[in-house]
């Protein structure tokens, strides 16, 4: 819908790109064998658990590689493990099909052991063969560590079967990254006896050829991705799952999942059945919640008084945890007068962020305390005391006037005029259906209007078009998500990555001039930062991929200062991960760090399989 697919999408986006940071539990040691698996607690079994999923498509096959899949991660689709995306520890997981994993000290080797009782729903055991096939399929999709680009960092170079339940993965030692282990454990596992014939018989040879260089390798890579097309459209017919549930039936608005008796941790699985309800727009979720029909839901934006109503329903509970996503207002500095830092600062002073948040997304975010490019929950951790030296850009209309005057503007009859006498206009681009962006954008436009700046919001029909037109440089100002944790690189990649001219090709960083190759922000290539001299923010950001902890903090501090001084983006609000549950039928009580799992939106399946859901007697 479209309307509201997109609203839903934003929620998913906000949650999915996520991962963690600040409020972490103690990092588990990667090789202590226990790996934070659920305690062998008893759960009360029985009952039907209801939760939500977006973009349900009743006609799609139960194939996890289909873009509209009816294999729901955590329910009837399983990964080796669920990545918590700890900011510093690359091997912090909840167990999936793997029960043990060990990373070598140099981070080049990963040994994975499957759960001894892991079994498919047709009774076949889950074996290393399944994992090898799934790794091959991952190559066709270029996902995780399975990238064929020559020189790509963090690519898996070798998969070795040790026995029926144990495998060893090796990373290319020439170009290693810390994301390698995540990239392996993230893999979705499908049964070899169902998917085995989908790949061509000579696939392994093609794969080997594709890992080389030259024309033959090019051709082989094409063949590999063609095989990926086959995989994506494959219909296995019956659902064969190694997860806690199997798809029973589906209609356009709901899917019914029933208990998989063969699931290795079935004793931890409380509900006999799970209903996942579709939502196209957030308001549908509000309705469900208000009726007390959902046993739990992941993050969706909810207006404040609706939250109160939901909270008033007996049994409903709310949890609010950190969400590493930040909403920003980004400038295209190719447009005058936004190339003038005084103008950008003036706008930062002129916008009352507290008011904006209170009318747009009071429950889904906190007004940004400053612009650093980093979520306020974790900014201390990364840059320490330097936070205090940043300009907070508190709401200050006098300061805004000064800045505008410094930019050569004049005020006449209460309206601001550009140096050439034309009225100063600020068009704010937002996306149709992103309700919090629209409300915030409209409020900003209203505030600026009241301050004497002509301003209005313009809406793009959907996110796809928005992204494309933004990249093409069509918008002077638009909303832009930043601070996307957990990794420091991902945080600043949104500011000093491709959108600002720096891109990575085959491991090499290059810079494109504004207006070229998707550089729409058009900021300067080097910035003078007080106390640090001239820096190249793109290079520093790129360095974050491999930097050690001390260097990382140093870079983060420099980049935060640079961002604060030059304002390529005004940081507007920092998202909060608001989730709902109902205690009438089930107690849903996951630990905080399981309220966000990399790449999984509908989280209840993971909570259930870890034993964090129990039926009320």
């Amino acid at each position, binding site marked *: *819908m*479209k*309307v*509201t*697919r997109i609203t839903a*999408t934003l929620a*998913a*986006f906000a949650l*999915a790109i996520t991962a963690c940071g600040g409020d972490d539990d103690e990092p588990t040691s990667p090789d202590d064998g226990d790996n934070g698996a659920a305690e062998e607690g008893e759960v009360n079994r029985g009952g*039907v658990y209801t939760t939500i999923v977006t973009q349900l*498509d*009743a*006609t*799609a*096959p139960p194939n996890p590689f*289909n*873009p*509209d899949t009816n294999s729901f991660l955590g329910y009837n689709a399983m990964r080796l493990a669920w990545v918590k995306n700890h900011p510093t520890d690359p091997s912090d997981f909840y167990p999936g099909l793997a029960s043990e994993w060990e990373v070598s000290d140099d981070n080049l080797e990963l040994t994975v052991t499957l759960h001894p009782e892991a079994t498919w729903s047709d009774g076949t055991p889950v074996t290393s063969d399944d994992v090898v096939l799934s790794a091959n399929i991952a190559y066709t*999709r*270029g*996902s995780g560590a399975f*990238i064929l*680009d020559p020189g790509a960092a963090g690519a898996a170079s070798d998969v070795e079967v040790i026995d029926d339940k144990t495998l060893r993965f090796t990373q290319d030692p020439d170009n290693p990254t810390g*994301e390698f282990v995540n990239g392996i454990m*993230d893999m979705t596992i499908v049964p070899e006896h169902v998917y085995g014939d989908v790949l061509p018989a000579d696939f392994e040879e093609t794969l080997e050829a594709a890992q080389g260089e030259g024309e033959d390798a090019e051709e082989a890579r094409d063949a590999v*991705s*063609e095989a*990926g*097309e086959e995989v*994506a459209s494959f219909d296995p017919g019956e659902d064969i799952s190694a997860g806690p549930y199997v798809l029973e*039936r*589906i*209609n*356009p*608005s*709901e*899917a*019914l999942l029933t208990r998989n008796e063969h699931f290795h941790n079935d004793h931890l699985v409380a509900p006999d*059945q799970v*209903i996942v309800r579709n939502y*196209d727009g957030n308001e*549908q979720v509000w*309705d*469900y919640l208000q*009726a007390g029909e959902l046993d739990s839901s992941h993050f969706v934006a909810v207006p404040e008084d609706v939250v109160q109503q939901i909270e008033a329903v007996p049994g409903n509970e709310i949890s609010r945890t950190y969400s590493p996503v930040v909403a920003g207002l980004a400038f295209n500095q190719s447009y005058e007068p936004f190339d003038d830092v005084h103008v950008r600062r003036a706008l930062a002073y002129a916008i009352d962020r507290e008011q904006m948040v209170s009318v747009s997304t009071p429950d889904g975010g906190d007004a940004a305390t400053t612009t650093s490019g980093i979520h306020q929950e974790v900014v201390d951790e990364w840059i320490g005391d330097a936070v205090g030296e940043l300009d907070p850009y508190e709401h200050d209309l006098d300061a805004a006037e000064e800045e505008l005057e410094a930019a050569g503007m004049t005020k006449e009859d209460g309206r601001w005029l550009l140096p050439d006498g034309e009225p100063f206009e600020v068009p704010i681009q937002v996306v149709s259906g992103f309700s919090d962006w629209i409300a915030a954008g409209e409020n900003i436009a209203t505030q600026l209007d009241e301050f004497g700046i002509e301003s209005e919001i313009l809406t793009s029909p*959907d*996110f*796809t*078009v928005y*992204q*494309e*037109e933004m990249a093409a440089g069509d918008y002077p100002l638009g909303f832009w998500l930043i601070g996307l944790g957990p990794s420091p690189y*991902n945080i600043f*990649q949104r500011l000093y990555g*491709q959108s600002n001219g720096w891109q*990575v090709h085959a491991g090499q960083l290059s810079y494109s001039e504004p207006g070229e190759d998707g550089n729409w922000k058009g900021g300067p290539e080097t910035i003078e930062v007080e106390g640090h001299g001239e820096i190249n923010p793109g290079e520093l950001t790129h360095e974050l991929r491999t930097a050690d902890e001390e260097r990382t903090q140093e870079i983060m501090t420099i980049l935060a200062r640079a961002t604060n001084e030059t304002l390529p983006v005004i940081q507007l609000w920092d998202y909060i991960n608001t989730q709902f549950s109902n205690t009438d039928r089930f107690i849903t009580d996951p630990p905080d760090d399981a309220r966000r799992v*990399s*790449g*999984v*939106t509908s989280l209840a399946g993971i909570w259930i399989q870890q034993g964090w859901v129990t039926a009320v007697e």
Partner: protein
Amino acid sequence: MKGFARRLAGQLARGLVMVWVVLTFTFVIISIMPGDPVRAEYENLLQQGYSPEQAEAQAAMLHRFRPTGSVFEQYVDYVGSLLRFDLGQSLYSRVDVATVLADAAKWTVIPVLLGTVLSFGLGVVVGVYAAIKRSSKLGDMLTMSGSLLRGIPDFVVGLLLASIFATLWPILPRQGAVNILYEPWTVEYVLSLGYHAILPVATYTISAYGGFILAMKSSVVTVLGDDFILAAELRGMKRSIIFRYIARNAILPLFTVFALSVAAVFSGAIFIERIFNYPGLGMLLIDSIGRRDITVMAGALLLITVAVIIANIVADLFYSVIDPRIRRAGDRV
């Protein structure tokens, strides 16, 4: 009968021309559409937690199939595959568009027909009454209610019903089509189907009703003016016979209105399904436009067009059967 066949053939030819117009229109839209499926896929992957680079590499890989070649070649290909009833696959689920459409169509066609039939019955009864009592206050009011309801958009009716029965006095569902817990075609399943369909069907009924009342009233008024009625009244024939005569002769033109009404309601389903979150062709069209799933979008538009054309042809044929004079008038170009 020969005239009938010729008329049918003419109508079919016209329908085909229209399908061609819509096809060409869709093709033009798709060719100049800014939304790029590769881009959409990229966002989709980002949502799934891929890093921006991984997502980009993968999106490019997945969408190798973008057609190349000149616009004319693409157009020929496009029309050619449609001639073979090949609507392509959804860019997302990779399921045949025909399958997707069939799945959605059943949720639209049945409620739409049900709503229109109910509306037809209601409109005929009230329309006869309004015609007979046309000089009285009540008849006047009934006619007025018809004019007003015909003027009120279906989405307004839908919104009002939703706010009354789903928000202020929440007794009816505004979400979904059937409870998944029930096995298909058990008693509970059918009851659940009906329960979820009440608001959409009621909306269809109410929004189509105005047209029927007015049509029936004017049709009855015409029949009342017939010499037969005058003569019968003069001779003091039984009221029931007169009534039967009126009903039989006045209802015929209504079938034409019925067919046209189905066409209108079919388009209106886009609003109703959106308001009641009811799956169907309208919802499919909106979703596919939002996601830029262009093959599904083109298919849904085509199917809606074909449905409307068929309804029109049926209406026209009814018309010609009922009133042979039309045939002559139609031929006299």
